[in-house]
């Protein structure tokens, strides 16, 4: 059982916000990913299926739809560089190159030492502060390529 009692208690509370429990599924998956290793494992899927009284195939179908959920293990720190138009116009490619260089990971892959997972993502809603990247959920905006090494270097 991957779901801890603490998480289940959290979900019990979460589900009171909705008339139907299933509405808590996506917020619950977020919490599972945050607390249980950074990805949605098969165990998390079967546990959530049991908790929400669904079949595993139904939970899997939902989780696999959303870009923020990782269904296989990834590097410890997730680095997401926006590749959409406003960022691209202001040098997103150089940010991606810098991130590739610093992390040692190709886009869509984890670094060999397992420290980083690098991905290109679609518009993150920081267009007037382009280019940008998200590291472990935190937005870093108005970037110069040199900022990338500094920011990632500060990650413990």
């Amino acid at each position: 059982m991957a779901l801890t009692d603490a998480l289940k208690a959290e979900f019990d509370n979460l589900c009171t916000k909705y008339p139907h429990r299933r509405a808590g599924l996506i917020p619950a998956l977020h919490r599972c990913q945050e607390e249980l290793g950074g990805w949605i494992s098969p165990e998390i899927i079967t546990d959530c299926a049991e908790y929400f009284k669904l079949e595993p195939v139904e939970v899997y179908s939902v989780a696999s739809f959303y870009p923020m959920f990782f269904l296989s293990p990834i590097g410890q720190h997730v680095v997401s560089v926006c590749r959409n138009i406003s960022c691209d116009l202001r040098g997103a490619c150089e940010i991606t190159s810098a991130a590739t260089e610093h992390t040692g990971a190709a886009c869509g892959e984890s670094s060999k030492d397992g420290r980083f997972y690098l991905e290109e993502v679609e518009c993150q809603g920081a267009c007037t502060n382009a280019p940008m990247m998200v590291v472990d959920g935190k937005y870093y905006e108005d970037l110069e390529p040199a900022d990338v090494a500094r920011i990632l270097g500060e990650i413990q």
Partner: protein
Amino acid sequence: MTHETYLLDRSKLADSHTLEVARADGAYGALQKVFESSMSPESVVGEVKKSGLRGRGGAGFPTGLKWSFMPNHETDSRTRYMAVNADESEPGTCKDRILMREDPHCLIEGCLIAAFAMRLDAVYIYVRGEYRLPYDRMQAALDEARAAGIIGDNILGSGYSCEIHMHKGAGAYICGEETGLMESLEGKRGHPRPKPPFPAGFGLWGQPTTVNNVESIFNVPFILARGADWFRTMGTETSPGNFLCGISGHVERPGVYEVPLGISARTILEDLAGGIWKGRSLKAWFPGGSSTGVLPADMLDTPMDHDSVKAAGSMFGTGAMIILDETASVVRSALILARFYEHESCGQCSQCREGTEWQEQIINRMLSGQGKSGDVELLVDLSKGMFPGKTICALSDAAAIPVLAAIKHFRGEFEACISSPEEILA
């Protein structure tokens, strides 16, 4: 240049997101006024209708009219909801995050007024999963408001009760489509639903629901506090009020600026955003986010309001201007957007699922020096097959329009990819 502002005024105050600062600045005054003047819910709807406020999420549908679609509570006793669309994922658009981050109490107040007007039982604020700080600020503000008796039972002693809940998305653009949002909120894949039935008749969990954009709801307290007539003094006849224009891309001062609807695009670009960066000149611009068709430089004097931009052959959308200078490749922009729509299509409809992939493949080939004679015509034809109104939702239209507009105004660039591939690859 000076014009009246209201949307971002409070956010200029330090700690504007706290109840203390917000309340001192007048937060919840409009709500109080509604209760104290014994306005009926129907008259609140009427005031919003009278204001002419149009939705700020991209479609520009009159907000008061949408509210009036909720069924008559005397004949339909089902549970009633509002979902606030804070999914903000339209490329170029980054205004709602500012409102939620800097002035969450104004949004809460707008939700409560809307809830009263439509006799709602609960409000869900669906925030895109990536917006951590805005979500946390909203949640903290809700907690403050609840503690102060502003949310929950007997709001401000009015006898009216309503709940507001935060809800998190998980990164899919299609969940910004109102029915895709509802599916996602219910814990499912974000597959838009065919309409009819419309959300007011069959929404969240099959109950009457209204879905409104953050900025739309944000305007409501001001309309109720200062009056519909005041609201109409700003903007244009058919697009009244101010809006938050995010201008990004090749400009000196990208940023989100509060301006009245109807202001010239040129004024925004040159006066507010400092003009094209690096001393360059304008080549092309998107008026309102990536789903609106690109316009050429010689149309920069288009007023930024719904009717004017439509007359110019594009759409106002979210009012998010994206600027391309003379060195930018329109074909590359088309590829970036084609890739975006291909990534975000939910996959239900044949035209969208296959068409977005096909668009990306063709443009990709063109930019890799592998364009073939006839590719431009094919791109136009297949894009025409994706819209209008042939699919469950408008993502298919949103994918088709930028390609068609780019080819319409910059066909030469596309043709050059095919005729001179070596130049493209250089």
